[in-house]
């Protein structure tokens, strides 16, 4: 009976192609949504890893290094460095600002001690050696030697770092801590966090110790509503895909009632007719899933931030697509089961 299902697809190929195209667009969107969600987590993981901290110390009761509104004295770094278990400790200022050149771009700013912890490896050029210099994310499109204005400060680009973004691809610039303090605290010697090499065995008074995972969770917390929205949209997209597949299979079952009746009257078992219809749904879903990969790859560069579709998303899409296809075809299958073979005679 699978041959009949395939011949029917061939016979109604125009409709099949249109359904595959429509469904693949929806599936492509789900891939992009999955990619956007993965990007948010990857950004957080990358930036936390790039700063090379074993532990993060923030003010007691503060939410975390990326969202705290309670700065601590930068000089506490010396106190932390003296704590057992700590090999080195450096203060970091973490801010959000704008960069002019002359276009205006929102940027994350990380200020750290030149040569200290918290300065990322550079892809090009060198690390910040002192005040008046920055290492910029390559996403900003800046070149070495370019001069930029950061919150009123005139700075020179001395190095470029790769993929150091967070908050939906917002690029990061790394500056000397005194420049960041001038920008965020009018020059006061404050910091958001002190990062360490080695983990302190106990927290110095007035501070709390956070791990990388806690720091990443702090960074991602403000994005929770965004990721929830993505998950919700994804669920809606799956529903739309199920609707398209379900409609096509149901329509097919409606149009083929007489055919099913004839096949039943000539000895075809219900289950083989159902298998044929299910096969059509699976083929439609699978073809749409395969096409969706190409569509997602084609559309991904159009997003204002890097969409990182995880490789596992592709086989998962195929699996879920087939499942959605089968579930969506349930109404059509039910219709096919209900066809009476007497219909082949035109009644009763």
């Amino acid at each position, binding site marked *: 009976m699978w*041959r009949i299902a395939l*011949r029917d697809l061939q016979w109604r190929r125009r409709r099949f192609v249109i359904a595959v195209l429509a469904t693949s667009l929806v599936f492509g969107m789900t891939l992009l949504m999955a990619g956007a969600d993965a990007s948010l987590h990857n950004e957080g993981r990358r930036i936390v890893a790039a700063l090379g901290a074993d532990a993060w110390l923030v003010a007691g009761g503060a939410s975390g290094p990326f969202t705290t509104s309670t700065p601590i004295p930068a000089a506490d770094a010396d106190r932390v460095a003296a704590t057992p278990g700590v090999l080195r400790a450096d203060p970091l200022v973490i801010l959000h600002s704008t960069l002019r050149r002359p276009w205006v771009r929102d940027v994350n700013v990380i200020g750290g001690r030149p040569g200290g912890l918290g300065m990322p490896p550079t892809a090009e050029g060198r690390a910040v050696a002192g005040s008046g210099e920055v290492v910029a994310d390559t996403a900003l499109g800046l070149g070495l030697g370019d001069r930029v204005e950061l919150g009123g400060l005139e700075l020179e680009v001395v190095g470029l770092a790769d993929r150091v973004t967070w908050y939906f691809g917002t690029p990061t610039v790394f500056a000397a801590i005194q420049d960041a303090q001038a920008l965020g605290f009018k020059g006061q010697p404050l910091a958001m966090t002190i990062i360490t090499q080695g983990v302190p065995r106990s927290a110095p008074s007035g501070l709390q110790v956070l791990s990388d995972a806690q720091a990443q969770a702090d960074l991602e917390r403000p994005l929770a509503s965004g990721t929830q929205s993505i998950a919700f949209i994804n669920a809606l997209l799956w529903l739309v895909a199920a609707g398209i597949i379900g409609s096509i299979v149901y329509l097919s079952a409606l149009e083929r009632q007489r055919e099913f009746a004839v*096949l039943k009257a000539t000895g*075809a078992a219900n289950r083989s007719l159902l298998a044929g219809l299910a096969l059509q749904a699976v083929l439609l879903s699978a073809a749409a899933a395969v096409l969706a990969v190409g569509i997602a790859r084609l559309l991904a560069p159009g997003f204002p931030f890097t969409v990182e579709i995880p490789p596992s998303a592709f086989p998962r899409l195929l699996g879920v697509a087939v499942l959605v296809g089968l579930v969506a075809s349930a109404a059509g299958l039910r219709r096919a089961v209900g066809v009476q073979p*007497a219909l*082949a005679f035109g009644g009763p």
Partner: protein
Amino acid sequence: MMDGIDIDIRDLTIEYASGGYLVRPIHGLDLQVASGELVLLLGASGSGKTTLLSALAAILRPTAGTIWVGDTEVTALRGAALTEYRRHRVGVVFQTFNLVPSLTARDNVQAPLWAARMPARQARARAEQLLDRFGLHERLDHRPGDLSGGQQQRVAIARALAHDPPLVLADEPTAHLDYIQVEGVLRLLRELARPGRIVVVATHDERLLSLADRVLHLSQPVLGESRPPERFKYEPGQMVFEQGDRSELVYTIEDGEIEIVRQRADGSEELVAVLGPGRYFGELGPLFGLQRSATARAVGHTVLTGYGARDFRDLVGSGRLAEAIRQAPC
């Protein structure tokens, strides 16, 4: 194929719901057919031809009675045995061919073989052999839409013969065909009826009469013979005729009252009319060769006179017949 297959139908009644009412196209039918015979079920639309074919094909379960095809009690088949019967023991040529539009002529003939899980190569060979036999070897890869009516009918017959069944049923096989195509199809059907196989053809086409070994008239004769009027007496609640009965007489009410009711599919009754002395009823069935469309029952002690349809028409006169038909409750 089984040798010596015959058909034995006993007291067959088939009812179904139509438009909310109970319809009984077959009522108490007995029929015996011997192997090798071609049987013609002749009748007007709605006379029960297709219904009887459906029951023979085991795709419609009768309300009462039995059908035996060879040593198989068709009316008792269930589950796998039913599927097995449909696959191997009966082949059906449906009205308007009912070929699967997406399949080629070859695939249409192969479809029942696929359903029976015959190996692909064997199924293909069988389909090509049948289509070749019916002169369609050059149309194997054509879809139904690219075939003439006669060619489609031959594909449909080939499909019915895919499993070489001992019983072949054909529903209005000459409908939708021109006379040249009809000739070819008739020849084919006649050839199929040979010892070991029975062919049952349902048609309203009387040109097929000479083709048949046996004819079953499912429509009752229109008007019928002239006969003397008869007087009938009924007790309260006694039935004069029942919905679905064959129609013979038109009645006039001499004394008492008659209620006309229509049986609904859910078993309830709908009162159509209550008629008193001087009124007549039951004229539509005998005049048009139809079964009774309602039930007539005496309300109290009732006396009726029954007329043959021809005599009733003469009694009323052609001028008043149209008015009588317009006012008829059943």
